[in-house]
């Protein structure tokens, strides 16, 4: 279950195939509130069972081990973040990506900000100058991966089922199957959600937040965690500005109030405005992690 919003993690599928979700299996069954009676019954039963086998199993099972001399309560230092398991998978992804010279970015936004349209145009604009693959995250459907594949790029769809975000384990599995080429660009389109994906490191180089001008200027203030976690914000759909009352300066001030080091680019995935800067940012990121220097400057 998601540690942030409480959504379920079951039913995760990559390209329609169910993947084993170790975390889901490890989660204990939670007795429902108000089910005290049923709970007590189970409890007593377990007690009888264990008691009957006491002498046979004493000190052998992992939950029953008695260390010699252990006779009093002791404090165990843990200092573990509640999200530490995800962070371990993220570190593994990051190492693997670095070894292969792959520049990975995690695109996060609310639903409908234009992430997929932006990716399609980005891949088309990069053409053959830079190899790009895509991991698509959505609760349901493979529609977005199909839109990406129509450009000729390889894409893999993760359906999170009840889940509200991609986690590092899902992305690790997806990287394994997608096998992005060495020295390439990996674009991860997260589930459209401005809350939960902020807390889950996927092993990416940067989170890129997309805010479209059809949303409110104060969105960074309403969802500060996401804009704090991002290194770059794309202000998308700027071709619509003449028809809206959206105040760009107010939006940028809100974003910088939440994250003073946030870089901002203004783009339109429909007209291609601002794409020179965006593509230059991507190329610079790729060049910085390449293992083999490019034959000619991009």
């Amino acid at each position: 279950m998601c540690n942030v919003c409480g959504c379920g993690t079951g039913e995760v599928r990559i390209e329609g195939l169910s993947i084993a979700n170790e975390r889901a299996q490890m989660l204990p069954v939670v007795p429902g509130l108000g089910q005290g009676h049923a709970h007590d019954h189970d409890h007593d039963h377990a007690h009888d069972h264990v008691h009957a086998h006491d002498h046979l199993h004493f000190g052998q099972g992992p939950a029953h081990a008695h260390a010699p001399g252990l006779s009093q309560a002791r404090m165990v230092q843990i200092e573990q973040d509640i999200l530490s398991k995800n962070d371990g998978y993220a570190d593994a992804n990051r190492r693997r990506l670095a070894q292969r010279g792959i520049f990975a970015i995690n695109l996060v936004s609310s639903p409908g900000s234009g992430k997929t349209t932006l990716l399609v145009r980005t891949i088309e604009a990069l053409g053959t100058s830079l190899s790009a693959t895509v991991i698509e995250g959505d609760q349901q459907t493979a529609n977005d991966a199909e839109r990406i594949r129509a450009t000729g790029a390889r894409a893999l769809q993760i359906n999170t089922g009840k889940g509200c975000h991609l986690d590092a384990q899902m992305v690790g599995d997806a990287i394994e199957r997608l096998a992005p080429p060495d020295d390439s660009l990996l674009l991860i389109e997260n589930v459209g959600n401005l809350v939960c994906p902020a807390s889950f490191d996927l092993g990416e180089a940067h989170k890129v937040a997309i805010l479209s001008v059809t949303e409110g200027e104060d969105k960074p203030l309403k969802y500060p965690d996401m804009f704090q976690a991002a290194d770059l914000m794309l202000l998308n759909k700027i071709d619509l500005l003449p028809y809206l009352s959206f105040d760009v300066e107010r939006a940028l001030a809100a974003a910088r109030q939440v994250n003073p080091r946030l870089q901002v680019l203004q783009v339109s995935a429909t007209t291609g405005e601002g794409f020179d800067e965006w593509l230059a940012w991507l190329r610079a990121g790729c060049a910085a992690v390449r293992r083999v220097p490019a034959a000619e400057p991009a």
Partner: protein
Amino acid sequence: MHEMSLAEGVLQIVEDTARREGGGRVSVVVLEIGQLAAVVPEALSFCFDAVTRGSIAEGARLEMIALPGEGYCMRCERTVPLQSPVDACPRCGSGQVQLTQGNEMRVKEMQIEPEAPDERRVAAR
């Protein structure tokens, strides 16, 4: 209200640790929770009691150490207290403040009791 799943995350860490330590009943769990993290302590405490029922941490006392919000003001070049993640600097009013503390959600430590015969039934679950 996501405290129920946070409580499950805590229990998972507690159970992993107890297994690594060779078992025993858990009597105290200490968390460090940033005051700017989106956590309501009373709700987390309630959910912790619910998810630990029937586990090795059943009946454990949950202690929460609150970590106050702090940020680094780039203009003042010093750490300042923050009441919210998007606060301006309380000294100079600058918005160039980077949050440095207050977002934590950490399991700090826990106390393990030696198993007594009448407690083994709890540990076995």
